[in-house]
Each structure stands twice: as structure tokens, then as C-alpha cells.
């Protein structure tokens, strides 16, 4: 499957290369065409002034036209050869113009991956050592170790979130497949409900076949569900319906709702409410995931968030054997 991703990225690059080649070629073609018209007009006018007296008879005019025909043919042939050469040159130019961009992107990707790696490995060591120490320690050291482990894990999530958003614009950031959103939601709810001390989650889910990246959609649903669970008094409600060619997913809790001052910047990065425990990236990631799938996420008042994703368009029916 890695090949497929690679292929998609290469296709995007190929398209950029073609577009740039085409625009170079267009400029060259306009220049060549203009020069050709000028050359032809100049030659025709020069001939005309030389043979002006002969042009007064019909035979003379026909002879003049016949004399100009090879000139036109020569110019067209030269143009065709020139265009061919210029096409090759445009392609080479486009490629050399794009290659620093590609190298820059690769450098950036490598930097992000390296940075994540360099941060995650020590965070992993901190979390593992603290968790291990927690089991041997007596209070109050025990709860200190527990906090160290928890904060290290949160920091790891933050690194992951930043990496997600930094890669958001890359082609191949999504690995799309046909899926039933209801199954994805059920899995997320099942995992959340398995956590100790979890609140009641009411789910009313209808089938919704969409094209999407399952891992990303899980992340979106999990972020919304975690938010709801963190702020709920006792219950969280998740509904999934289809409506007008869209899948509509709503997540709502019975908590105090989003404070009014937080609403304007709800989906911005690092915009978090005073009572929020998260990184402040959760809803920004939700918004990116929804829009990358051609949908949107809106705050629908109170504590309710609604995600709208386009349903998959069914392909032509398969022949039944």
C-alpha cells in the first residue's frame, strides 16, 4: 500500500510539472507565433514592393501567391521544429524550477519526522521510568511519579498533534477508503467506554457509507468524544444520520456547554478554554480532518458539535454473476 501513497504523491508532482511545462510552452509558443507572423508579413511586404507592377494582372497575383507558399511552408516547418525543441526546454526548465521546492519539502518532512523522533524517544523513557517508579514508590512520591508519567504521555500526544497539523497540507496525508462511519463511531465508543470510570454514552447511529481515512476519522470522533466526556455531568449523546447526501454526526454532553468567550476561537490552534485540559489542538485537528474529507465541523450551540461529511457516491452497479 505504501507504493500507492508514493504513487499519489508522484502524480501530484507530475501534475505540477506538467502545468509549469505547459505555461512555459505557452509563453514560448506565443513568442514564436508572433515572430512568425511578423516574419511572414515582412517577407510578403518586401516581395510585394519588389514585384508590385506584376500584381496588377490576375496571373501575376496567382504567381505571387504561389511564390509565397514555400515561404509559409518554411516558416511553419521551422515553427514546428522550434516548438518541439522549446517543448523539451520547457520541460527541463520546469523540472529544474520545481526541484528545489521538492527538496525543500523533503527537508521539511525529514525535519518534522526527526524532531518528533528526538522528542518522543526521551518522552518514552520518562513515561516508562516514571510509571515503573510509581509502582515501587510510597506516597507522596507515588502520585508525583504518576503525574510525571501522565504529563510525558500528554506531551507525546501534543507532538503527534503538531506533526498531524504540520503535515495537513501534504498530498497523501489522507489514505481514503470506502467505509461505514457508523462502524468507525461504534469502535471509538467501544474503546472510550472500556476506559475505567467512563460515563454513559448514548449512541443512535444509522449506516453512513463515506469515503475517508479511517484513522483520521477515528481521531476526529475520539477528539469530540473526549471533549464531551471531559465536560459532561453524567451523559454523552452521539447521533449519526444521513441527510441530503451528507453524513451528519453530532456529539453532545449534558455539561455546562462551551463558555461564550471561547466560541469565536473554538477551532483555532492553541485556543483553549480556561477549563480545558487538552492541548488546544483537538478541535483544530477536527476541523482539518473534516475539511480534508470535503466536509465541515460546526459548533451547534450548547455543548453540541456537528460534523458533516459527504456520503460516498455509489459507483456503477457491479454485474451480478
Amino acid at each position, binding site marked *: *500500500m505504501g507504493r*500507492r501513497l508514493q504513487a499519489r504523491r508522484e502524480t501530484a508532482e507530475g501534475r505540477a510539472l506538467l502545468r509549469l511545462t505547459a505555461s512555459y510552452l505557452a509563453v514560448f509558443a506565443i513568442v514564436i507565433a508572433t515572430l512568425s507572423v511578423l516574419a511572414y508579413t515582412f517577407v510578403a511586404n518586401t516581395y510585394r514592393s519588389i514585384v508590385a507592377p506584376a500584381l496588377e494582372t490576375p496571373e501575376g497575383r496567382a504567381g505571387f501567391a504561389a511564390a509565397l507558399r514555400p515561404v509559409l511552408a518554411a516558416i511553419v516547418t521551422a515553427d514546428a521544429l522550434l516548438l518541439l525543441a522549446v517543448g523539451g526546454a520547457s520541460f527541463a526548465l520546469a523540472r529544474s524550477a520545481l526541484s528545489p521546492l521538492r527538496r525543500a519539502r523533503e527537508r521539511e518532512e525529514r525535519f518534522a519526522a526527526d524532531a*518528533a523522533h528526538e522528542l518522543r524517544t526521551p518522552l518514552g523513557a520518562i*513515561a516508562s521510568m516514571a510509571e515503573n517508579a510509581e509502582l515501587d514508590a510510597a506516597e507522596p512520591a507515588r502520585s508525583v511519579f504518576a503525574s510525571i508519567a501522565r504529563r510525558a504521555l500528554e*506531551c*507525546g500526544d501534543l507532538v503527534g498533534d503538531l506533526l498531524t497539523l504540520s503535515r495537513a497540507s501534504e498530498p497523501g496525508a489522507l489514505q481514503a477508503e470506502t467505509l461505514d462511519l457508523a462502524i468507525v463511531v461504534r*469502535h471509538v465508543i467501544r474503546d472510550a467506554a472500556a476506559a475505567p470510570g467512563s460515563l454513559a454514552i448514548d449512541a443512535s447511529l444509522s449506516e453512513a*457509507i463515506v469515503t475517508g481515512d479511517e484513522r483520521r476519522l477515528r481521531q476526529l470522533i475520539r477528539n469530540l468524544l473526549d471533549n464531551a466526556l471531559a465536560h459532561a455531568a453524567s451523559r454523552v449523546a452521539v447521533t449519526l444520520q444521513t441527510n441530503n447526501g451528507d453524513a451528519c454526526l453530532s456529539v453532545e454532553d449534558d455539561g455546562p456547554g462551551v463558555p461564550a468567550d471561547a466560541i469565536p476561537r473554538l477551532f483555532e490552534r492553541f485556543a483553549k478554554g480556561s477549563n480545558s485540559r487538552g492541548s488546544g489542538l483537538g478541535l483544530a485537528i477536527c476541523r482539518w480532518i473534516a475539511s480534508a474529507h470535503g466536509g465541515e465541523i460546526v459548533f451547534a450551540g450548547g455543548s453540541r458539535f456537528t460534523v458533516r461529511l459527504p456520503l*460516498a457516491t455509489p459507483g456503477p*452497479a457491479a454485474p451480478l454473476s
Partner: protein
Amino acid sequence: MRILLIEDDDDISGAVAAMLGRERYAVDVERDGERGLDRLLTASYALAIVDVGLPSRDGFAICRAARDEGIGTPLLILTAQDSVEQRIRGLDAGADDYLIKPFSIGELTARVRALLRRGERPPLPTRYAIGSLELDAGTRSASVAGRALELSATEYRLLEFFARERGRTLSRSQILEKIWDFDFQGSSNIVDVYVSQLRRKLAALDSTATIATAWGVGYKLVVKPPKAARSSG
């Protein structure tokens, strides 16, 4: 039960080994990739936990080499990188699960328990040939009469499930449970959507293998009789 841990970060390996020790597993720790692979190939382990970034041989190469040698030991990859490419590389290399650093040790032990429950992989055939359709489980690729069949990850898994159970009728709920981990009330048409996608792709390459409908029961993979169904020509 004996577990092999190949990890070059001493702090992590120390803490993980101590934690697994509490759970009564015997843990061998190896810091170097090459030596880790040697141990995996020569000794018998119930499970191996393999870090990706290792001196001398990376975790993916270790998994691939172990699978190439026919080692069925469950393999859990530890990685500091969380990208689609990395995950695909890990699974393609034959890893059974992966965990991203930093992880909670509770999560690690839960994954370890799950993998140990599942046990060694049964020695499945790595290639299937059904009519003109061929599947290579090693590279997770499919082809029809030598031409590549482009499949998504789920399409491949479904087709491999059909191939493994060829000729047997699989019910929608069996398929849902196996491919979509569906253990809920109710049902989903996702199976029919995928069967129709697969049929379309197989038909486009004139495959003689096709998915037949067993009315009211489910689907099965069959080879078309030679003169059947060439209507669209």
C-alpha cells in the same frame, strides 16, 4: 513465557523489562539490531518487542528477515514515528502490532497480552491462485493474469479472506466480524459495497475468479466456468 526486547535506549528497555518482569514474563534485552535478529532466529520466544531505530539493523529489517526465515513469533514494533508510511512499512514487514512512543506501560502490557493470546501465526500460504487471480500475502498485492490489481488495504484483506476460504460461502456477519471487527448489534451494507467494488475491479481485468452471491446467505469466491458471463465483451 519468554519475551525478547530489542531496544537501544537503556532507560526504556530497563523500565519495560522491569514492568514485564512484574507480570511474570522472562525478558531478554538486546541493544543491537543484528544481534537481536540472531537471537530471534536461534532461540524460541513467545513474543518479540522491536524498536525501529536500532544500531546495525532497523526494526523493519528485523521483522522482514524473521518472517523470511519462517519465524511466526508475534512481533510488536515500537516506533517514535507516526506516519502512514511508517505504519504501512511495519505491517508490510510482517509486524503484528505497533506502539508509538511515548506509550503507557499499561498499554504495552495490554498489547503484549493480546498478542500472546493470539499466539503464533498459523503457517498460512503466502500465495493464492484462484483461476487467473493471484494474491501474494507477503507483499499484500494481487494480480490477474500478470496484470496488477489495484486494491485498497481493506479490499485486499477482504479478497484474501475470500481466497483463504475459497469456495466456501461467507455470511455478511462473518465478513463484518473478520474484516471490520464488527461485534455490535445491527448490520451494515459495507460488505455489499466492498463486494461490488471488488467485482468491478476483477471484471475490469477479465478475471476468471469472481465473487458469487449465495442468495440469502452471503458470498463466495468462485472460478467462472469458461463460457460464462462475457456479455459486455
